[in-house]
């Protein structure tokens, strides 16, 4: 560890870091703009200037950029020398020449890095007398608002969007003081990660458009530590609320999981929480089929009455918390409980959970994935099934360039230099999939195979690695690339709903695990708590079809829209005459409609729970605000039902922590659940952690439009967080960080004050706890691959996932629905040509007794005999992955216009809205 001197102060610094990092690590306030901990240095803004001295006798020194200067033993610097402070002020003064000074109407105001830095350098008076340059803004789609006049040309947006996230449609144009950051033409930003621009831009050029429609200042938001429920990656988020509405979602740093970035589903997909389709009251179905709203107590009494002495079964949900699922299972007994997976999903999830518990391969965190130097993507379009992981994979392929840089003695953070050196040399990424994936652009090789063949191809790779001669040269090649790598990664998952693919992936990964070497194996799974549900189900899980057969008298369905998993016929059978169905969920859906009683559940933003992500990490989310009306978190509904029915063990439980303790006690696989976050008794120096900021304003007045009496702040009896601005938000355990703020650092850049060191874990550690530790006995099973017999003019149906559209809840957000577009059938160019269709035409897909006319999408590469269908879309819901279909042109097809649900929406006045009315 080198020693350096800053203003005479002796500092021990980390080897290989730069002076800016060293200063920030030492707690010094050195302003910066263009540098970003995840993206390194380019030295363009010139804000992080210090004076460097040759030696002790040098009194003049010279200006250097902190972010571009590596630490060296004995080097001497000054932060406070007059020429340094004067220089830094001059930089801000020139950045502000053309700035519109429109903070009062800017969405960034109050959390603006430019504001912070301006204050930090002490800039006050403008001397510039010229006209300001102005720019025309672009329409960038429903998610991102563009306001170029505020730009300070730090290049962060371009570097993030192009270099980091692999986007191609946003960048720098023109030059000198006319630089422009935008698209070639107006239009939707294509990247699935565009939302991070909001946090990457140090001022208000790129802002959160849905948030603008219902805007509040950062300091007026009430926030809580939360976990994204958009997929199984489990990114940490910080949602913010005001006036009873979820206003926006910001990234919440987790060193091992999402780091600084989210995908757009995670950032923008929570609008459904404010949806008018939310249930507000419990309802009991009347004879005419409509629902009668009833109070909680009445609903509970009726439910208890229905259940008394009856054969009761229950269906849980992979998108509900561990705790809720646990309670539901206890309530009806394991033999009457189905985890809520479809039959195929149940089998896949049982094997994934089995694999994670026994594999010899390393089950990596996202951070570890970024270290991979050769990647085999096996049958998964990761960008659309586990988006944040795909963003990590885009960093892994850069390891080749870091290797080259190291040979030249270039530090990784010298971002532009490393890129210039490596040009387009990337670490190998091999993609084997049925169709295009959104990582094809960084892949060294893409192989298109039907699902069955993917599985077989995997067997060939394993054989090739074992040294058995195979005639498959591609398999030989891939085997060799993987075997040459120091840190290979195999990534696969359940999205093809094909056991053989996963099995082959495991076999490949495990054959790479020798005495000295190891391989990472990462498996993508469908939902935010799929792994949690699989762990709970263990081997005894009741397949959903058994439950259908068992014909229960009373059925409890929790947070699960069964029509996504059952055929119409099964639905009918399950929910028909003989069964009284009680459903617990948030949004209107076909399952609720078919139920006899509905109970309004709280969303993730209004409740507390634990989710187990794809790597087996359990993480806790906390309520951001209290549920409105008669909504209640599922776990509370279930405790109350237990009490009302006099359940033996459950009726003794009262608090969330009791449930956690019980679950941990009764299920060895959940050992560690309690460590996911501190319990209700936790206090930091005697205080709770505030959900509101120091500057939270208008508390007395904000509800005056409804009631002039200031309501009492709610008490949180379940967690260490308070609905208050009192308390301490610093250095607490990482799982309890509701927002980041530090004096002088109002923007999200204040994160560095919470990190143990630049880009390191938070001071309070890393949130979450690995539940699954593999026994490393090995999980490879003998393959029993089958091939589907194909008739001419038949196609195999392959599910095609979309970040926007395939996920059940987020698509109830206007912006996401707009981006999801229409459901589609995806064809290769050759097939399309034969059929006589082009993109946007219609084709009729018939499979079994289902026949749907769908919009045609043309893909670049499609495996022989395969066609894709939009997974998770209503119109295509009934299609089974892997089944056969016929295809004809729809001659009567009328081309569809895009649905501009969000873009055309008028802005509701948040002050007047009083929340949705009872929808029952």
């Amino acid at each position, binding site marked *: 560890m080198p020693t350096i001197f800053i203003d005479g102060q002796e500092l021990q610094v980390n080897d290989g870091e730069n002076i800016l990092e060293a200063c920030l690590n030492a707690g010094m306030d050195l302003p910066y703009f263009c540098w970003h901990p995840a993206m390194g240095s380019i030295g363009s803004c010139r804000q992080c200037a210090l004076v460097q001295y040759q030696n002790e006798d040098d009194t003049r020194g010279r200006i250097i950029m902190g972010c571009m200067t590596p630490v060296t033993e004995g080097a001497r610097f000054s932060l406070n020398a007059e020429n340094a402070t004067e220089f830094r002020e001059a930089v801000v003064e020139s950045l502000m020449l053309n700035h519109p000074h429109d903070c009062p109407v800017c969405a960034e105001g109050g959390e603006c890095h430019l504001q912070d830095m301006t204050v930090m350098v002490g800039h006050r008076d403008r001397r510039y007398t010229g006209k300001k340059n102005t720019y025309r803004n672009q329409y960038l789609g429903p998610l991102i608002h563009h306001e170029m006049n505020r730009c300070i040309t730090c290049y962060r947006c371009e570097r993030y969007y192009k270099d980091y996230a692999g986007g191609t449609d946003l960048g720098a*144009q023109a030059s000198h003081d006319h630089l422009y950051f935008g698209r*070639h033409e107006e239009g939707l930003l294509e990247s699935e990660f565009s939302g991070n621009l909001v946090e990457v831009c140090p001022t208000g050029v790129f802002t959160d458009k849905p948030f603008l429609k219902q805007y509040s200042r950062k300091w007026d938001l009430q926030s809580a530590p939360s976990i994204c429920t958009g997929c199984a990656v489990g990114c940490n988020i910080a949602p913010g609320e005001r006036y009873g509405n979820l206003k926006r979602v910001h990234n919440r740093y987790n060193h091992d999981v999402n780091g600084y970035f989210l995908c757009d589903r995670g950032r923008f997909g929570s609008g459904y929480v404010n949806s008018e389709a939310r249930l507000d009251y419990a309802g009991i179905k009347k004879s005419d089929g409509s629902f009668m709203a009833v109070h909680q107590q009445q609903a509970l009494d009726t439910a208890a009455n229905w259940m008394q002495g009856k054969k009761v079964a229950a269906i849980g949900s992979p998108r509900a918390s561990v705790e809720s699922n646990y309670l539901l299972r206890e309530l009806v007994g394991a033999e009457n409980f189905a985890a809520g997976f479809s039959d195929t999903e149940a089998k896949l999830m049982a094997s994934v959970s089995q694999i994670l518990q026994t594999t010899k391969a390393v089950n990596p965190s996202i951070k570890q994935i970024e270290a991979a130097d050769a990647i085999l993507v096996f049958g998964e379009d990761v960008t659309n099934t586990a988006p944040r992981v795909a963003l990590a994979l885009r960093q892994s392929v850069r390891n080749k360039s870091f290797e080259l840089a190291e040979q030249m003695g270039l530090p990784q953070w010298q971002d532009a230099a490393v890129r210039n050196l490596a040009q387009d040399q990337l670490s190998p990424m091999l993609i084997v999939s049925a169709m295009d994936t959104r990582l094809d652009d960084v892949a060294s090789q893409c192989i298109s195979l039907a699902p069955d063949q993917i599985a077989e191809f995997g067997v060939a790779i394993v054989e090739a690695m074992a040294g058995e001669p195979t005639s498959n040269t591609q398999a030989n090649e891939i085997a060799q690339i993987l075997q040459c790598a120091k840190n290979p990664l195999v990534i696969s998952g359940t999205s093809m709903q094909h056991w053989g693919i996963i099995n082959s992936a495991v076999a490949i990964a495990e054959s790479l695990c020798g005495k000295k070497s190891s391989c990472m194996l990462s498996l993508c799974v469908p939902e935010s708590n799929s792994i949690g549900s699989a762990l709970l189900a263990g081997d005894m899980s009741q397949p959903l079809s058994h439950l259908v057969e068992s014909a229960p008298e009373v059925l409890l369905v929790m947070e699960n829209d069964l029509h996504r998993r059952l055929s119409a016929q099964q639905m009918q059978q399950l929910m028909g005459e003989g069964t009284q169905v009680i459903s617990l969920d948030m949004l209107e859906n076909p399952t609720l409609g078919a139920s006899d009683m509905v109970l309004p559940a709280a969303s993730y933003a209004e409740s507390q729970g634990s989710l187990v992500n794809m790597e087996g990490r359990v993480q806790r989310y906390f309520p951001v605000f209290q549920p409105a009306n008669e909504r209640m978190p599922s776990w509370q509904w279930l405790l109350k039902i237990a009490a009302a029915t006099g359940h033996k063990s459950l009726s003794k439980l009262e608090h969330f922590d009791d449930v956690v303790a019980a679950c941990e006690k009764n299920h060895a696989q959940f050992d560690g659940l309690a460590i996911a976050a501190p319990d209700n008794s936790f206090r930091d120096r005697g205080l709770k952690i505030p959900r509101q900021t120091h500057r939270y304003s208008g508390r007395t007045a904000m509800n005056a439009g409804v009631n002039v009496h200031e309501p009492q702040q709610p008490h949180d009896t379940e967690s260490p967080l308070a609905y208050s601005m009192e308390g301490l938000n610093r250095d607490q355990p990482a799982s309890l960080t509701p927002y980041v703020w530090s004096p002088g650092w109002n923007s999200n850049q204040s994160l560095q004050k919470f990190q143990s060191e630049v880009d390191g874990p938070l001071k309070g550690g890393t949130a979450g706890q690995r539940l699954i530790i593999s026994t490393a006995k090995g999980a490879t099973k003998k393959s029993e691959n089958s091939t589907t017999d194909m008739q001419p003019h038949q196609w195999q149906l392959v599910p095609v996932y979309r970040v926007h559209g395939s996920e059940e809840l987020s698509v109830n957000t206007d912006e996401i629905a707009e981006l999801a577009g229409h459901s589609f059938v995806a064809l290769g160019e050759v097939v399309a040509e034969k059929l006589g269709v082009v993109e946007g035409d219609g084709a009729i897909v018939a499979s079994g007794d289902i026949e749907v006319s769908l919009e045609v999408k043309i893909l670049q590469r499609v495996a022989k005999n395969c066609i894709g269908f939009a997974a998770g879309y209503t119109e295509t819901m009934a299609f089974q992955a892997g089944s056969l279909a016929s295809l004809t042109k729809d001659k009567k097809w009328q081309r569809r216009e895009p649905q501009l649900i969000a873009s055309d929406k008028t802005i509701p006045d948040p002050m007047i809205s009083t929340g949705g009315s009872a929808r029952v």
Partner: protein
Amino acid sequence: MSKKEMIQSDIGSVLSAQEIAEIDAELAHIPYKSGAAIDALKIVQAKRGWVSDECLQGIAKYLEMSAEELEGVATFYNLIYRRPVGEKVILFCDSVSCWIGGCDDIKSKISNVLGVDYGETTADSSYTLLPVPCLGACDRAPVMMVGDDLVTHLDDKKITELFGSAANGSAK
């Protein structure tokens, strides 16, 4: 059809066969396709005077880069025109030696005669007037380029010879 053929036929309507052949000649000695971005822009502009959106998209596709990326390149350089220009571009040197030599007055004279300021094209589309950094002929200042020709030792007389005078209307 191969992918390459597809792209060719796709943009065939935009880029001419000769343009494509010239771009291919550049590509022959450049390790990455996008490396020929500037050459390709210049090739297309040489034929058409300027680079339209359509051409830009065509080139981008041919070079397998995004239109955005090519736009960033095209808008960086002084000699790539993203708006239509006249038959001839007047590159008028306004740098220091020409300035000392009185180029401001000559510029006024040209503007007067042609009825255009910097960045503008004459009504009959004959000329577009643009400023250019030092043309490296300072010993013969003031100078300008009209189309491909360097015109040196500019004075009122020369301007009249070249463009006529304001009295007899705008340019030939």
